[in-house]
């Protein structure tokens, strides 16, 4: 009899800043972030810059130090491997989005989870190279 335990497949997941920020408000983005860091989560180096700039913009425009938001991002970043793309592909009209797409293709990620309309709009074009999914699709795919 085979007593070996069946190992759950670990997916390689690229997650964008949009989803991480939305996760603060709950719902599918929250579940997506949890599932992504429970698997193998990667992102371009740009992610850290985006989250840092976001906190600075928050501080500049609102009263408060947003220490807890920074701590949350710090925790998330400690679970993500940041990578610099070797070549930045020119697919989306947004140059920052292209870094996420390039990392997903370069690292042969199973999923690129994004809530960004510019990234979602190239979903069909890239379907043979990379599976671009919304947080809802990602959660449904991994949970079923």
């Amino acid at each position, binding site marked *: 009899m085979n007593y070996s335990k069946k190992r759950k497949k670990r997916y390689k997941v690229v997650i964008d800043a949009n989803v991480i920020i939305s996760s603060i408000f*709950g719902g599918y983005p929250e579940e997506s972030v949890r599932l992504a860091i429970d698997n193998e989560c990667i992102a371009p180096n740009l992610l850290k810059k985006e989250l840092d700039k976001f906190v600075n913009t928050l501080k500049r425009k609102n009263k408060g130090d947003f220490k807890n938001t920074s701590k949350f991002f710090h925790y998330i970043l400690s679970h993500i491997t940041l990578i610099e793309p070797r070549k930045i592909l020119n697919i989306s009209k947004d140059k920052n989005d292209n870094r996420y797409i390039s990392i997903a293709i370069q690292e042969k990620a199973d999923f690129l989870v994004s*809530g960004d309309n510019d990234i979602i709009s190239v979903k069909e074009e890239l379907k043979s190279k990379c599976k671009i999914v919304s947080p809802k699709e990602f959660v449904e795919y991994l949970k079923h």
Partner: protein
Amino acid sequence: MLIKIVSVKEFKDKATQLLREKGPVIITRRGIPVAKLEPIDKLKGLMLKARLEMKEANISEKEAIELLKEAEKEI
């Protein structure tokens, strides 16, 4: 992890102690399970604190995403 099963009365009497023990607790009323109390992990705790910060600053998810777009322009 051992799941504690307590009645509503026991829960009322020992709430502080049960919360300190950090394990899941099933609460029963007349012997029937009616609620489950579970500890919050680090990720959820940090997320909730950040959510509270956004709520206090009156920032909605839509506004936060707009702020991200604004921040991205500076990169």
